[in-house]
């Protein structure tokens, strides 16, 4: 799961604009708590993935995101003592003690899980659609090493995925019983550390430790996609923050559930979706 230039508006936008668009969606996911709005934002991210030509890859990320969301929901339901509407009584459980599952804790966990899943999907969309080399160029003036670390981390993802697949294949080839999970986890960690050491040595001999700032380049003329995604990012951020401040899409879980799904919530959800997806409509010059 790594960046590859594809013929889409998001890929055609400069890294700054695309990054800003992703950041605006992340901001919306963080400030909004109403399930209707969060659901709409999740659908927006999936739709953006399809429009950017990375729908298949996002579905793969969904396989990681859904179990994560379910896990969060279940854990919150089991450990939270808040909420008044008991939907299941487990009685005395080891470690957990008296355990009553409430509707409020379950819904709160589900909303929290939905937000986490949406952020995972957004991270996947970012790594698939935003050029890490451009991000490095963007940030090297302010924080070169942090930007490089982030870029290399992105680059290492496919390398480590290949490593873990190799390790898994090797274990399938063993005669007799497969080793335990703990042994495998340790071997994987050791492999990751070896890889990290190799990359660090490669960076050293390429002069990374003594990197100096390049002379300032001329200002780049913004493309239609840069403008589109920048405006969309600003609009999404403003709508998300303003509606939160105005209290238009409330959500409270405890002590009693309050998650309205009326016209106002639907309007905000629809507005955020449209504002985020409008730049994809312009496909002129998407091949760069």
């Amino acid at each position, binding site marked *: 799961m790594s960046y590859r230039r594809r013929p889409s508006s998001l890929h055609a936008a400069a890294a700054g604009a695309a990054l800003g668009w992703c950041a605006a969606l992340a901001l919306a996911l963080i400030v909004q708590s109403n399930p209707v709005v969060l659901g709409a934002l999740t659908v927006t991210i999936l739709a953006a993935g399809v429009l950017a030509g990375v729908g298949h890859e996002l579905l793969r990320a969904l396989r990681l995101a859904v179990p994560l969301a379910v896990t969060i929901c279940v854990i919150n339901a089991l450990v939270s003592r808040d909420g008044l509407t008991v939907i299941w009584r487990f009685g005395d459980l080891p470690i957990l003690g008296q355990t009553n599952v409430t509707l409020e804790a379950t819904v709160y966990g589900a909303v929290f899980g939905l937000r986490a899943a949406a952020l995972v999907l957004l991270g996947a969309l970012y790594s698939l659609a935003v050029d890490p080399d451009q991000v490095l160029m963007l940030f090297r003036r302010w924080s070169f090493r942090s930007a490089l670390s982030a870029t290399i981390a992105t680059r290492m993802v496919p390398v480590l995925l290949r490593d873990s697949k190799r390790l898994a294949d090797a274990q399938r080839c063993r005669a*007799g019983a497969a080793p335990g999970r703990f042994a495998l986890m340790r071997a994987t960690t050791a492999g990751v550390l070896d890889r990290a050491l190799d990359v660090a040595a490669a960076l050293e*001999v390429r002069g990374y430790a003594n990197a100096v700032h390049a002379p300032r380049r001329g200002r780049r003329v913004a493309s239609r996609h840069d403008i589109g995604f920048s405006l969309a990012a600003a609009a999404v951020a403003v709508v998300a923050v303003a509606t939160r401040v105005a209290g238009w899409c409330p959500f409270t879980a405890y002590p009693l559930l309050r998650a309205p799904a009326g016209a106002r919530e639907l309007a905000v959800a629809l507005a955020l979706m449209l504002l985020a997806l409008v730049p994809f409509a312009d496909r002129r010059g998407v091949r760069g």
Partner: protein
Amino acid sequence: MTLVSISELSYRYPGVIAPALDVVSLEVSAGEFVLVAGASGSGKSTLLRALSGLVPHFYGGAISGSVCVAGNDTRDHGPGDLARDVGTLFQDPETQIVMGTVRAELAFGVQNRGWGAAAVARAVEEAALALAVDGLLDRPTAELSGGELQRVALGATLAGRPAVVCLDEPTSQLDPVAGDELIGLLRRLNEDQDLTVILAEHRLERCLAAADRVIGMLDGRIGFDGPPAAFLVWALEAAPYLVTPGARLLSRVGLDPQPGVKAARAALRAARLLPEAVGVPGPDSALSVGGETGSRNRFLPPRRTRSPAALRFDRVWHELRDGPAALRGLSLTVAPGERVALMGRNGAGKSTLLRHAAGLMKPTRGQVEVAGRVALLLQNPTDYLVHDTVAQETSAGALARFGLSELAGRHPRDLSGGEKQRLALAIVLGDGASAGPDADPGLEEPAVLCLDEPTRGMDRAAKDELVALLRTIGLAVIVATHDPELAAAFADRVVLLADGAVIADGAASEVLCGGVYFATETARILGGAGGALLPEDGAALLERERVSA
């Protein structure tokens, strides 16, 4: 002009008692092409790391003596400073590529130095043209083949125009074609641009002829320093495992060893042991001695038969989703006890074929039939080693079978390359004791053993050890390899793959004689005469010719 000066350098890695380098002194002039030869653990890589400043600045450890590169003393200047003058290329291209596209990768090093946009663009274009990767500039690095990645990594090293470039086994992961191309490219850059090249390699037959000078390393010391021909004379006495097959051939017929095919042929011609007409081997050259006429038909895959088989591929296709076909209607039968070498360029389908045999991949069309369990040893034996001790990795019987019982208490990752290889073999083969209808199917003695590039990065001694070991295993063995010398030493039969299909299938003496890249050095020197692949066979042939003449 002296570019590199090493004076009485000794170095120990942290926590290790034995020195990796032991009182090494050396001077390299600008424009020299220096080959560093030696067994695994002899100090080749450490010497290159000392030149790039990684030793001691990155690896730590105890150091004495001095290293001065282009006027920079490495005690005062770390790898970052030295990167201006020293380009370094390691074995594994995958971990050296840090950017997303080839263009960004080539620009990375010079951007680190603060070059302006125009200078960076020019450096990128020039490096791309010099390395012939200009067609790849906007390709994502994640989509490049191993050979392309290594060229890009070399381009990134050269973009900043270093005075000296240090390369640590850069061809170990490349097929023979890409490996020869890389060595040729280095020689051209050395001649055209006066680039100083310091190259550490195991496959000396590939690069000895390109070098001006050879450093022979023995246990952290310099055992030899001189021209390639004199190196071979020294190695015959002091380090026989460093002698190239061509040199062994010449020494067996009483001639002075010579580096490279051309010089070896000239020496044989001067001694009237080789006719003037011998040149590049032809497709039927294996049969040119003895009066038998060759036929191209013998290189085609044999007809499918229903004779007993340990492994049978019947018109197997493997078509990748949104990608090409990795196997294209491949048919292949391996008899019990047969030893087969599988050769071909990177991406030809060798690994895919072995993975199908072991059941790690399923054909999209066609059938794979096996007469029992298939044991597969993948490229990196370390992938099998997940426990704290050798004893925990497999049964005591399996350890005893591969002579590893004495190492039972050691940590698997502390073993040498050859020992890791044997341990991985013990893990995939087991002790072979379980048999009968009630036996655990995972523990039964396999019908076929498959090895994927088992000698990558191995020195000759470890390779010889592996060949001897494989010869003692009475199973059908299939080895995917880029190394024609290994194939010649081990295999009864060689199958050549290209683009997912079998393009040649025959006895080793037939397939490995009729080419340039997939041929042993002996076969290339003799033009494929008599089907001689190994120096011993070649020498015997030449002796017979001498007697009959």
